[in-house]
């Protein structure tokens, strides 16, 4: 499969945007500016971008606690994202959601989710909706290796396969659920192998290689659009940061520094960058331009968030029920 130059550059840019956004989030959190919990996507950019670049704009995704990357890849406005992280009224959820609940239904983002695995049936339900409406979008559920041990993983995928729904299950296997290595809590090495329990195709790919991810995802998308049902894509990846911002030195209690260093050498952005440079699609100066442009965007996002007002306390009472007419 050959991707057009623009597409490749767009993928590169998105990965850089995710990375820089997350670095800014980390910085602002450590400075005590951002409240709440944040789980950074740094190191895993190739998964979100690889998968989502295989989607159409009208396709759906359902995201996780580690969700900023998915949103950015799907096209979220980072100004509204940053404002949400600040708890400002101009954020995606008017400050009601925060990092773990960003959603943008207009561009098919069904929401990040603070409950691990919970998005699996939600994305599948969107796929059911697609099937019932007779349209040809697809839905994607992202989740981690930890989520793959939750009961809802099983229920959700089984039903999707029984009903042949157009949904892709993307397991972002970064090997750890907080401090717990997957090998300590499951007896198999590839979560992708669980596809056989549901009679669906599996793809097990290098999650640090955005092109490999993109290729697998493209096949899965085609499979779904053709009405053949769900697929399970396992992307082997790694988070370069602690489980959440502020975990600090506790991280080293559960994963060896050498392991981290090894994986960092496989940085997905560096990898794509050198491939693109090799293919003469990217140059160092273009890369610099991209970097500068995104720095600017992020600065703007922070400024937007900073200058936005907090919601009025009374607004806490709004938005619980839809108050308009019945159907």
């Amino acid at each position, binding site marked *: 499969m050959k991707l057009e130059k623009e597409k490749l550059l767009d993928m590169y840019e998105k990965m850089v945007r995710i990375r820089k956004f997350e670095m800014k989030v980390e910085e602002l959190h450590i400075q005590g500016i951002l409240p709440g919990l944040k789980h950074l996507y740094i190191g895993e950019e190739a998964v979100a971008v690889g998968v989502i670049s295989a989607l159409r704009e009208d396709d759906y995704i359902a995201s996780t606690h580690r969700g900023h990357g998915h949103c950015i890849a799907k096209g979220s406005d980072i100004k509204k994202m940053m404002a949400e992280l600040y708890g400002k009224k101009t954020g*995606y959820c008017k400050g*009601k959601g925060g990092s773990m*609940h960003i959603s*943008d239904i207009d561009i098919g983002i069904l*929401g990040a989710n603070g409950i691990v695995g919970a998005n*699996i049936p939600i994305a599948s339900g969107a796929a059911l909706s*697609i099937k019932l409406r007779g349209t040809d979008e697809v839905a994607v559920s992202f989740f981690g290796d930890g989520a793959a041990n939750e009961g809802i993983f099983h229920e959700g995928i089984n039903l999707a396969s029984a*009903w042949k729904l157009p949904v892709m299950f993307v397991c972002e296997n970064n090997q750890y659920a907080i401090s717990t290595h997957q090998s300590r809590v499951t007896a198999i090495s590839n979560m992708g192998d669980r596809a056989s329990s549901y009679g669906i195709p599996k793809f097990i790919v290098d999650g640090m290689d955005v092109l490999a991810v993109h290729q697998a995802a493209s096949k899965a998308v085609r499979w779904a659009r053709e009405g053949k049902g769900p697929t399970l894509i396992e992307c082997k990846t790694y988070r370069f940061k602690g489980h959440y911002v502020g975990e600090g030195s506790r991280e080293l209690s559960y994963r060896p520094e050498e392991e981290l260093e090894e994986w960092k050498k496989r940085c997905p952005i560096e990898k794509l960058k050198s491939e693109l440079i090799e293919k003469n699609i990217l140059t160092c100066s273009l890369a610099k331009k991209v970097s500068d442009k995104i720095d600017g965007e992020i600065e703007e996002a922070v400024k937007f968030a900073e200058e936005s007002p907090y919601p009025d306390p009374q607004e806490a009472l709004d938005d619980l029920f*839809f108050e308009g007419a019945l*159907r």
Partner: protein
Amino acid sequence: MRELTYAEAAVEAIQEEMEKDTTIFYMGEDVGRFGGTYGTTKGLWERFGEDRVRDTPLSEAAIIGYALGAAITGMRPIAEMMFADLLCLAMDQIVNQVAKMRYMSGGKIRVPLLIRVPLGGLRRAAAQHSQHLESWFVHTPGLRIIAPSSPYDVKGLLKTAIKENNPVISFEHIMLYQTKGEVPEESYVLPMGKAEVKREGRDVTVVTYSLMVHRCLSAAEKLSKEGIDVEVIDLRSLSPLDIETVVASVKKTNKVAIVHQASLTGGVGAEIGMRIVETAFDYLDSPVKRIGSLDVPVPFSPPLEDFVVPTEEKIAAEIKKIVRR
């Protein structure tokens, strides 16, 4: 007027709405050709086919999660839990997802989703098939809760629930499904959050819902022969709660009992009681009385279960005590 069973009236509501709106579909365990273990969907599969009346695997969490995913992407699902005790398997999807989805999105997402839940003891079905768990959901902001007691009410309230653009849970007592009542041929709806005075009376107010409405009415009849005039209020909805109707009655009778089949401690009766105390304290001649099932799991053996669940006799005796205080 024609008579329908509660089950028939419920099915009719759904059928009418499904005919008008092709985005409505139904999913649950054995709801298809089998028509629902308790007849909750009888005839729907024949009429609408298996695309719109979908049998699911035993996967309660997935049932609700799927319904939610469909609800926020253009469909209007009706999901069924076979009985209330199974809600325990879907609490994350109901409480953490369905109830909060709109709010967490800052009001951008709509969740038009009806969850139907048969429930109730007195079937000798023992501890894991007899629970009344409504108070958990009354304690969960973001849900609407109905608990209709008659064929007329279940039809009218389900129609509204299906038209709602918010999540609704309908608790339907299994012992009511085969009861009959008048249901007009013409289409109608009933508003959620509106209680009904089922029987007027001067001496004492009894607030109740679901199956217990009938036990309270019988108790009231019995007491009327002893010269005690009982007003019986059927709440019909638990969220929102029509506290105005209750308080108006209490201001008249100055005495009140609340009756439900859920176990007493932490039941909805506590909430209703406190709302009365908060709003009508100075009108109360005696403490608000709560009558609920005893605080044990529902036992299997008939004499045990009958001892645990409020009977007509017990309700009557307690009301008498209040009036004679």
